[in-house]
């Protein structure tokens, strides 16, 4: 018999076998019905609040407590009953779902937000999630209440429909995708949760401001802050930029006229920022920084440098429909330097007529299309 010499002197190892069997049995027991979840989330105060109240930790804690009382936690998000909300006319915790499907509610929306949005937008909607690093543009920090791409004028807070529109269309040219794979009712609840986070963020900074001014946080002051914040949201539905009838056709004449308006410093004056070729290299938008490098002259409401859109790319963040660009020209972009030309008056007359704005729209669109100049 030829047998390997190593085999002979190995004794049995019953202890080890028993241990293995026990481990296997344990694994089986654990495997049945094992359903891990996430650790519970918590809202933190924003960086701005923390630095503003650096030497007043007691106030910081008080504001954090106040916010929890008013808005709950990510696992139990709810607007606490308050007279300020009664002005809304609807129960903010249960707005009607227009699609007729059962409305998931804010808690379910928070779970959707956790899966779909949190990695970029962060727990509080601060645009500071772990995956936000390096994204240009950075994910929206909704806590300021400013939403850049809406159909509204006067730098208004968005309607639910505006947030929904962004969820349905995404933001072209950025990492913000569309969410059409979620059911309409789920999208609606998600829009409501985004609004909830925005309002919560606005209340947070309002409370800090109130404390700065009054050195205390009385229930009345809190109520005033809530009323103030909500008043801005309540106005949104009346701010829609509407254009009746069909969009004027993109004729050669209109494009040529748009070209002239685009470059006319007394009319559109678009070239001053967007550049003569629309490349976003206009002199007004750029300055020479301390290091001698060219850098953007403007920054947005979040303190980030803003470059004018290179219109030749054809990537329009607010949508590429003619009406989207019309609204951008008419109402500007909240939180950024893009002016609201439709609202600008000159010598008691509107600076641009509606027809002139359509000419600009067609010229701007033509820059990325074949029949462009």
């Amino acid at each position, binding site marked *: *018999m*030829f*047998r*390997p*010499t*190593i*085999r*002979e002197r*190995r004794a*049995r*190892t019953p202890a*080890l*076998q028993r241990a*293995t069997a026990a*481990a*296997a049995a344990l*694994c089986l027991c654990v*495997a049945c019905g094992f*359903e*891990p*979840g*996430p*650790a*519970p*989330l918590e809202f*933190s105060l924003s960086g701005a609040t923390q630095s503003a109240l650096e030497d007043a930790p007691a106030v910081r804690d008080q504001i954090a407590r106040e916010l929890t009382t008013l808005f709950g936690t990510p696992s139990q998000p709810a607007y606490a009953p308050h007279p300020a909300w009664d002005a809304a006319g609807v129960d903010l915790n249960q707005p009607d779902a227009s699609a007729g499907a059962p409305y998931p509610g804010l808690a379910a929306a928070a779970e959707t937000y*956790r*899966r779909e949005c*949190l*990695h970029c937008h*962060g*727990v509080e909607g601060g645009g500071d*999630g*772990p*995956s936000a*690093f*390096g*994204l*240009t*543009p950075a994910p929206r920090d909704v806590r300021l209440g400013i939403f850049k791409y809406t159909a509204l004028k006067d730098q208004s807070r968005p309607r639910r429909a505006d947030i929904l529109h962004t969820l349905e269309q995404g933001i072209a*040219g*950025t*990492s913000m995708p569309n969410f059409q*794979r979620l059911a309409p009712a789920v999208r609606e609840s998600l829009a409501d949760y985004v609004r909830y986070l925005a309002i919560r963020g606005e209340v947070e900074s309002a409370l800090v401001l109130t404390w700065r001014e009054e050195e205390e946080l009385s229930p009345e002051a809190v109520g005033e802050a809530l009323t103030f914040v909500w008043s801005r949201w309540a106005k949104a539905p009346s701010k829609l930029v509407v254009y009746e009838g069909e969009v004027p056709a993109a004729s050669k004449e209109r494009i040529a006229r748009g070209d002239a308006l685009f470059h006319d410093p007394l009319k559109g004056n678009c070239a001053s920022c967007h550049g003569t070729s629309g490349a976003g290299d206009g002199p007004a938008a750029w300055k020479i920084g301390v290091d001698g490098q060219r850098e953007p002259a403007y920054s947005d409401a979040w303190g980030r440098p803003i470059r004018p859109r*290179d219109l030749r*790319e054809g*990537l329009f963040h607010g949508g590429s429909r003619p009406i989207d660009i019309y609204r951008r020209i008419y109402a500007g972009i909240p939180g950024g330097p893009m002016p609201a030309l439709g609202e600008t008056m000159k010598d008691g007359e509107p600076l641009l007529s509606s027809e002139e704005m359509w000419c600009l729209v067609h010229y701007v669109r033509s820059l990325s299309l074949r029949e462009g100049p």
Partner: protein
Amino acid sequence: MSESASKARWFSTDHEHIGRQYLFTSLAMLVLGGMMALAIRWQLAWPWTEMPLIGRVLFPKTGHVISPDFYTVLFTMHGTIMIFFVIIPLLVGAFGNLLVPAMIGAREMAFPRLNMWSYWTMIPAIACLLAGFFVEGGGAASGWTGYAPLASVTSGAQGSGTGQTLWLVALLMSGVSSLLGAITYVTTIATHRARGMTLMRMPLTVWGVFTASALQVVALPMLTAGGLLQLADRLLLTGFFTPQNLVINGVALDAVAATGGSPLLWQHLFWFYSHPAVYVMVLPAMGIVSDVLSVHGRKPVFGYKPMVWALCAICVLGFLVWGHHMFVSGMSPAAGTAFMLSTFVIALPSSIKTFNWLATLHRARIQLTASMLFALGFVALFIIGGLSGLWMAATPVDVYINNTYVVVAHFHFIVFGGSVFAVFAGLYHWYPRFFGRALDERLGKLHFVGTFVLTNCVFLMMHQLGLAGMLRRTADPYVYGMFEHLRPVNVFITWSAIALAAWQLVFVVNLLKARATPRREHGNPWRACSLEWRTAASAPIVEHGPYEYSRPDANSDWLPQARDDTPERVSSRPQS
């Protein structure tokens, strides 16, 4: 220990020492890469839930749930580590150093210093790769394939910044490391063989390392060139792989870098090396398994010459099939046809090898040792992995299969079921030769049974996942409603993977147990013919092929290759 002695110990030019350094470094990396695999599996079974251990540390604010970009880093690092820092160094670096000189009767390597540097360039490569985890933006996140422009443009992804640069540097250094080793092996095998050791008397393990090294010598410069070009694209803002008119992550590239290049160019350069690299990962494994089957089957390898020619054929054809990774890449359809034909052709030598292994076992006297079990496991799993390759070779079918989990199943059967099983077979077989200590056979068999069963539990059902369309590199397949019903399968696979990883503790126990036993002379425990088991100090004179088992004209059932180690002397030892 004095300073010079410690220096001699770390920077030894002794090939066996270098082999052991390679062995333990790659085994440590195997553990690391395996942990990453478990993290990946966790995410696929229970996406967006608290990840054990790392979730709490890395993602304290977002519910201890890993982020999607960290997931991409995980699978990028898993692939890179397993290929470049586990399988290739294990098979070529460790087994090559420990076996090749001994098997061909060479006292030392042709270039001992080059050989030492081969190991010592791998260490900074590993350091660079892992450093990626600690830089801003995190590690490389564009997959182990590093496709441009995702990888070549710094704004492409979160990890496309410093992390990707470090990854490329690591890749280049590991390439240099492999190249130094490969040159050493090719030269050693070409010039340092003992008297009488003709090429056709070399054990197949040596042939495996030889062909793998030849592949590396020829193909690696291409990857190095590609890597340097991508590094230039990133650091010098050249545009080899960046076409015109791109806007990546808000950055218009025409304004900031040279453009006008081609993303397909990177794929060609990358796969021109990395497809042969697949064979680098399997040729030595084939050699090891051939040897183990023969020794423990007490029977000569069936069709030694066809086996050698098949290795050489794979080596040559390996250069002609890289395009089969690119059937849907946008490459010309005519090129697709050509690469399909060459891919079907390369299936032939692999099947010849399989038939020869089976024929080797025909009427053998099989000793079911742990080593033999792993070798048999290799053959079985290699068959599965090889067969599923045919789906991918057929262009119209690959259109569906490409980038799904079928591909993941396929290459894990080859690389885990194949290469890793061969590594275990080799370790159980040669451990007494390497360390003067024997591994426990009982534990070894226990190790095999669990590993074999669990490997199939982990990878088999991935075929079905892929056929259902489940894509690779997804952090959450259930984004698609059509994959929701695959959740139980993924949960099963994840539990199996956890069990598979846990089961490797048996091997660790075995290693520790062997370490606790005193070192002693084991002689030639398997009574193998080849030279590495020789104990005589004199220079061998080779008279036979490596597989003279069960010769009817000999007293013993084996005949050593070299003259001065006669079977009579050895068989006079006490037998069981």
